[in-house]
């Protein structure tokens, strides 16, 4: 097996940082060992596509463009009117979907390794993100389960509120290190520890 490496390995290796008060109030990390499948259909094939896909996922595709759906441990996000992301830990997901969706109905594209999944955790996570994304993250406007496609430092990415104080940001892998630096820099005043969630498969 070829050894997988992280886009932010070097940055992660430098460790955490004490905040202005000498404390570390946040946890910043990377989630590893996951897969990303992008699904798409054409103008007239939405129904057949939905049927084929939900058979594999065991779950209807979400209609919402703002709230993620769940199929077991998989997270499904409607990223465009005709496109979905399946975020999964299941290595076989892409192949299973590809087998189920004929090309006449839609497309299945394995995008694993194309994104760096950054995790921001802690009570100050919202304050850190407010420095980076032009999105209203007030709990009344951005409930758990919400996701947005937006940008950090003029580069697009996807932000998902995975749990109460846990946010995950899917950065383009080639911008992963620069995005990490921006997040860590924004977290400097609060202080942070770093962690790695899930090892490379």
């Amino acid at each position, binding site marked *: 097996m070829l050894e997988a490496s992280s886009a932010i390995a070097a940055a992660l290796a430098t460790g955490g940082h004490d905040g202005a008060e000498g404390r570390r109030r946040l946890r910043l990390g990377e989630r590893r060992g996951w897969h990303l499948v992008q699904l798409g259909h054409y*103008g007239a094939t939405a129904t057949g596509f939905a049927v084929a896909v939900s058979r594999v996922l065991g779950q209807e595709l979400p209609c919402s*463009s*703002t709230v993620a759906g769940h199929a077991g441990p998989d997270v499904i996000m409607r*990223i*465009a*009117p005709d*496109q979905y992301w399946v975020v999964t830990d299941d290595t076989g997901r892409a192949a299973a979907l590809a087998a189920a969706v004929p090309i006449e109905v839609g497309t299945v594209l394995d995008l694993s390794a194309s994104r760096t999944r950054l995790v921001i955790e802690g009570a100050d996570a919202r304050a850190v993100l407010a420095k980076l994304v*032009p999105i209203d993250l007030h709990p009344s406007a951005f409930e758990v389960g919400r996701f*947005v*496609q*937006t*940008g950090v430092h*003029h*580069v*697009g*990415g996807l932000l998902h509120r995975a749990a109460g104080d846990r946010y995950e940001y899917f950065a383009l892998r080639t911008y992963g290190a620069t995005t990490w630096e921006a997040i860590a820099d924004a977290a400097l005043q609060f202080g942070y520890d770093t962690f790695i969630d899930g090892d490379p498969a």
Partner: protein
Amino acid sequence: MLRIPCPHCGERDYTEFRYAGDATKRRPVHGTEDVRAWYEHVFLFTNPKGPHREYWQHVQGCRQWLVLERDTATNTVGRSWLARTGAPS
């Protein structure tokens, strides 16, 4: 700062989008050999001072091309719809 209603993502800062010009123009059908028609399509603009329809692409979001109604005299933003649907929803 302009705030643009993306038909898919909701209202966002205009900086997430890329402006792409006059959406009132109709692109000649692919292969149309009328050079004048292509010239007018590519090079001439109505550029009105007032209500207008224009293309934007939500490049940092859903990457959808959309049509936005906006008043160029005031920057007041109106309706928007996916360009692929071709009409206000």
